[in-house]
């Protein structure tokens, strides 16, 4: 075992930290969130420095590194500004599907703009009724004269309103020509005919990222957009869910660390009853709890990302990482708000949005109920099997 980042990893960490410190502007971030605007310029700059798609294959102009490197970047970005970090990093939420399962050509065509920071991707996986059950998907994907036709509605899609392409999860329409496996993934450019968007409105956090419902009304794409010719069982789409959960866990770690940094700063400065807050035992113990919480989360997140890179990460690992890290983020940001008192509630002092952002991470891609189901399925075995 070796619990130290390698030299290149440390350089990435430092570069990500420096970039975030230098480029993320607090006032700008608050303004972006307030107006629900996507930070396009920051995305482009991050892309230019190679932070976007650091774990994408070189064939897609990615850096060919791993999830661990991506986690390191996510941690440092979200530490500086959880909302900005999430916005920038979620730009590729969906691109992974394309290069993992698509043909080279489409992978290049769709993923390259993402790596260049010029395009946003979106995972259009969930439907309201699914509630953690991937087999309840009702969107239909059918072959039709050589094209692929998509019909259905995807709900609460991140980047839903401004993605350049969606990766849509569906099942094969009854009577459709391709038989057999039930689940299909298809990349759909957002300028295709028949796509209608409904804004899901303001969100409690993660406010720079749009959130919407995407309706596919007989949308047609060429066959090459079908990411796996033969479809699959639920394992492949679930693998993408796992990958997304690991990424979220790294964002959660950074969010916790960022709130912690600010709380620690504050208690060192602020006086009450003629003493610095840092002198009060109860305040000290809160900081100790937060530090312990972050420390136990950090190694779990790194371990999970590492396991993913070694292709040993199962759904239980990913769910444990997300459950632990998002809970840590909520608890630490919550305590940070409390430590800052009235200021903790004020926009200007930032921790308030770390708290809201943490809660969105906790809900996204499965809240604790779905995560615990997933963990139990691995640890105990699926229910129903005696």
């Amino acid at each position: 075992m070796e619990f130290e980042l390698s030299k290149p990893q440390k350089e990435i960490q430092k570069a990500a930290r420096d970039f975030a410190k230098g480029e993320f502007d607090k006032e700008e971030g608050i303004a972006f969130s307030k107006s629900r605007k996507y930070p396009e310029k920051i995305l482009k700059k991050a892309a230019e420095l190679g932070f976007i798609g650091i774990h994408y294959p070189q064939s897609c102009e990615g850096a060919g590194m791993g999830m661990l490197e991506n986690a390191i970047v996510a941690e440092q970005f979200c530490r500086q500004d959880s909302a900005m970090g999430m916005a920038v990093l979620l730009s590729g939420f969906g691109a992974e599907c394309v290069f993992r399962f698509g043909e080279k050509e489409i992978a290049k065509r769709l993923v390259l703009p993402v790596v260049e920071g010029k395009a946003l991707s979106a995972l259009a996986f969930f439907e309201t009724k699914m509630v953690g059950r991937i087999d309840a998907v009702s969107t239909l994907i059918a072959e039709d004269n050589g094209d692929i036709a998509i019909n259905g509605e995807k709900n609460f899609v991140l980047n839903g309103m401004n993605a350049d392409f969606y990766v849509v999860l569906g099942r094969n329409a009854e009577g459709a020509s391709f038989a057999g496996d039930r689940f299909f993934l298809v990349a759909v450019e957002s300028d295709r005919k028949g796509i209608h968007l409904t804004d899901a409105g303001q969100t409690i956090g993660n406010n720079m990222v749009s959130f919407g419902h995407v309706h596919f009304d007989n949308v047609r794409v060429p066959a090459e957009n079908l990411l796996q010719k033969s479809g699959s069982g639920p394992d492949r789409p679930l693998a993408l869910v796992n990958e997304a959960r690991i990424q979220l866990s790294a964002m959660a770690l950074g969010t916790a660390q960022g709130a912690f940094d600010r709380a620690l700063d504050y208690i060192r400065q602020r006086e009450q009853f003629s003493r610095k807050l840092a002198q009060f035992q109860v305040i000290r113990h809160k900081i100790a709890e937060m530090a312990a919480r972050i420390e136990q989360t950090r190694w779990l997140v790194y371990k999970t990302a590492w396991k993913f890179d070694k292709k040993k990460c199962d759904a239980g690992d990913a769910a444990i990482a997300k459950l632990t890290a998002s809970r840590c983020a909520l608890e630490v940001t919550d305590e940070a708000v409390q430590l800052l008192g009235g200021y903790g509630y004020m926009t200007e002092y930032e921790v308030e949005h770390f708290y809201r952002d943490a809660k969105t991470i906790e809900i996204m891609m499965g809240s604790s109920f779905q995560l615990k189901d997933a963990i139990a399925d691995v640890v105990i075995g699926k229910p129903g099997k005696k």
Partner: protein
Amino acid sequence: MKILQYTEDHESFRMRMRGFLESEIMPYTDQWEKEHITPKWAWQKMGQAGFLCTAVPEEYGGLGGDFLYSVIAAEEMTRTNHTGLATMLHSDVVVPYIHTFGSNGQKQKYLPGCVSGDIITAIAMTEPDAGSDLASMTATAEQSGDWIVLNGSKTFISNGINADLVIVAAKNPAVDNPYESVSLYLVEAGTPGFNRGRQLEKMGFHSQDTAEMFFSNCRIPEENRLGNDGAGFYMLMEKLQQERLMTAIGGQAAAEYMLELTQKFCRETTDASGKPLSKQQAVMFALVEMATEVKIGRAFLDKLIAGHAAGEPEIVETSMAKYWITDLAKRISQKCLDLYGDYGFTEACPIARGFRDIRVMSIFAGTNEIMKQIAGKFMGL
């Protein structure tokens, strides 16, 4: 078995108020949240309908109602799921200072307007560098002939923009003992030297006009001193009890309301197999656990309300209730959201606003850490 004995009059007041709020107030709250302010007409409408300052005696136009009316008003306002129309603060935190400590002249001058909603009140106690630590207050009040000259700045003042009348706590710089140097003053909007700062941007409470206030050689007549000179600290200590109890009542009502909404959602929403969410064992247990804590909080609170109404203030238990119940409300807001799935992510979900609004309850009216400190002190620890 019920701890509180509500009469038929109480119940009909509650129903009238609920109906009024549903038809006259709730249609506008989303707009106020966007505008980050609540219009004065809403206050006047509340007052005209008899829902402000229920405790003020009839001679000043009030209802002369007992404490349970205050409780009902606070609970029903909570169900409007917005905070701009901070009537609880006005009716049961600020106005009681005037009612209890005011001179006859002050009462006659101000109370009728407070009841009618023509005068919106605020209390300016907290300062940028003195939160819960009243002793380190720096705003000053200096005598100058028959006038008092106020200087200093205050922050986190609820109703800060709308307030027509502000109770300001300030120190006499000539008195050393911080506990004997504070007095309270009534300052009317428009008094020269009294300026409001920017409205503060915050996590929630968007329809609530929390603001800073600045006093710069602000001259008010000496007759605007509220209560005895130098008695401010003790007046604040006395009235903070009810403020904390009212905060606990608000927190309890919020927890109950969020849980009610969430239970309804989980009963009515089905999963892919057509089963209501509430029948999933883990969801059911989560709802039961929340319901248990909410009921337990309610029993404790009702006991305190009964004591408070009977004139038996309980400093230790009030501090405990304030911290435990506001923390409970916060936990409930966090946990309920999880049950809504991705919908809980959006402001369209009715719990979302609660999630943002309730977070400040553990902080205001004395942080929950201060509550524990007070409880510990009065327990003799």
